[in-house]
């Protein structure tokens, strides 16, 4: 385990961020909402980082895992299953779906993989819209009857907090594990990784499965918060887009990158929404293009390269 504690200061940064989030959440209901969305984005970005940052595959359909988790949660809750258990099962179902789909689409190269993940998202959404008798169709279904009494806004935020911490710890362990190294190798050079003994297909599938669990659970949380699942809102491509932008902004492949990225993104988004509504995605889109051109390694990359002192605080 000695290898884990090389950069002690990095852990201080991460713990510090979480502490800030907890403190901020207690100021007012408004800040609680902000922390909620920040943590949600953090979880999505961190989990996306597994397949995108570590394995180098851009998953535009990441939102699908959220939706699958949400619908699984909803269906189970309607049948009387404990909500918290349903959330976890939602995550597992999302992972299983990732496994099945991964077998097919992970063979594809970069851009084609990306488009096919988009296809997965749209396909599932249309499947639900197109089968109203089975899944509730476009109108979705509500959960008031089953969850109505137990609503406490703080609980959901703390669930997300725990989920985010778990995700972070998971990522730290992954990055030091043999799977983590193999994934990074296959991201750098697929064929050379194969020649070094990496079973690229197996690694990619495992990464995909792992990346699906956390958004799946988060989907259940979202469903709990809104008391409603419907295809338009829950299979919303914005989840994918914002997660991708966050990972790029913060620094793909790093652990603290998505965390910082989520905070920057969400805070700026809130500011934008107050002053220039409707412009935030445009600005972020342009920002992304600039990042790709100038700083492909995101904020973390910039800090790493320019400020040596800060390096100790990053991981």
């Amino acid at each position, binding site marked *: 385990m000695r290898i884990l504690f090389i950069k002690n200061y990095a852990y201080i940064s991460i713990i510090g961020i979480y502490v800030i989030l907890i403190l901020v959440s207690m100021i007012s209901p408004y800040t609680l909402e902000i922390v909620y969305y920040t943590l949600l984005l953090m979880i999505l970005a961190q989990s996306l980082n597994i397949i995108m940052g570590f394995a180098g595959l851009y998953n535009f359909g990441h939102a699908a895992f959220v939706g699958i988790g949400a619908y699984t949660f909803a269906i189970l809750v309607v049948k009387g299953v404990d909500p918290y258990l349903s959330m976890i099962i939602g995550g597992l179902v999302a992972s299983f779906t990732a496994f099945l789909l991964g077998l097919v689409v992970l063979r594809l190269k970069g851009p084609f993989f990306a488009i096919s993940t988009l296809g997965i998202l749209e396909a599932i959404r249309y499947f639900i819209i197109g089968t109203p008798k089975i899944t509730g169709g476009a109108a979705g279904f509500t959960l008031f009857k089953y969850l109505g009494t137990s609503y406490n806004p703080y609980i959901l935020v703390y669930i997300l907090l725990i989920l985010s911490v778990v995700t972070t710890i998971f990522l730290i362990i992954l990055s030091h594990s043999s799977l983590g190294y193999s994934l990074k190798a296959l991201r*750098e050079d697929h064929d050379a990784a194969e020649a070094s*003994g990496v079973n690229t297909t197996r690694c990619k599938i495992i990464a995909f499965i792992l990346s699906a669990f956390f958004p799946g659970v988060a989907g259940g949380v979202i469903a709990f918060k809104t008391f409603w699942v419907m295809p338009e809102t829950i299979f919303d491509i914005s989840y994918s887009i914002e997660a991708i932008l966050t990972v790029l902004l913060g620094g793909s492949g790093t652990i603290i990158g998505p965390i910082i990225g989520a905070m920057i993104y969400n805070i700026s988004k809130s500011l934008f929404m107050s002053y220039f509504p409707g412009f935030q995605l445009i600005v972020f889109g342009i920002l992304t293009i600039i990042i790709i051109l100038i700083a492909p390694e995101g904020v973390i990359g910039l800090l790493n390269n320019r400020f040596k002192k800060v390096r100790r605080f990053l991981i």
Partner: protein
Amino acid sequence: MAILVVDNVTKKFGGIVALRNVSLDIHDEILGLIGPNGSGKTTLVNIISGAYMPDSGKIIYRDNDITILPPHVRCRLGIARTYQIPRPFSNLTVLENVIVSVINGTLYGKVSMKEAKYVAEDILKTVGLSRFKEIPAKSLNIQERKRLELARALGIEPKLILLDEVLSGLTLSEMSEMLSIIKKIHETKKIPILMIEHIMHAIMNISDRIIVLNQGIKIAEGTPEEIANDIKVIEAYLGDRELALKFVKK
């Protein structure tokens, strides 16, 4: 006795026949593979390592038919290869590059991350890259990259090493350093090596036997002296018989 047998392999790319009925075996030796450009040398290495499948013929490794096995499985069985143009994992450090091989080679599943790190550090010492341990691989120059290729090959604790023009791009002194590293590896670890090379004096000097390919066909096989004296080889490749003989086992 033979660790690897290439049995009557043919490989075509569209209309081009890269290899035609090529057979060879590798024993406990340094086997040189030479031939004019385009003769199929790298294709042969790709077929042995699993990157390509032959259209016909078999590859037999330690008495097992591995013809249809994928590259990563062959790697775990002990076949290591280097690339003519080095392909390091650019954004990983030099040490991490080697660790990837260590955990995925013959030691797959048998070594912890901590142990792998020590093994990797040892290997870096052998090839002389220790001081670059924490440097991202993309910062290395060509000589250092070639050594990293070799280090990654050693990382899998191989039983057979395939070197593809590992000396190209190096200065004379860098070359002799590399050659002594290779010789030491062969002698201390007793690993058979198949070496593709164009640098005549090097390959004639280091090889126990040499195989010559020309346009996908094996045209000669023998000791360096025999090769240097072989008319077919001289015609196809060496040009000057006297000069060739001079380089043999000086």
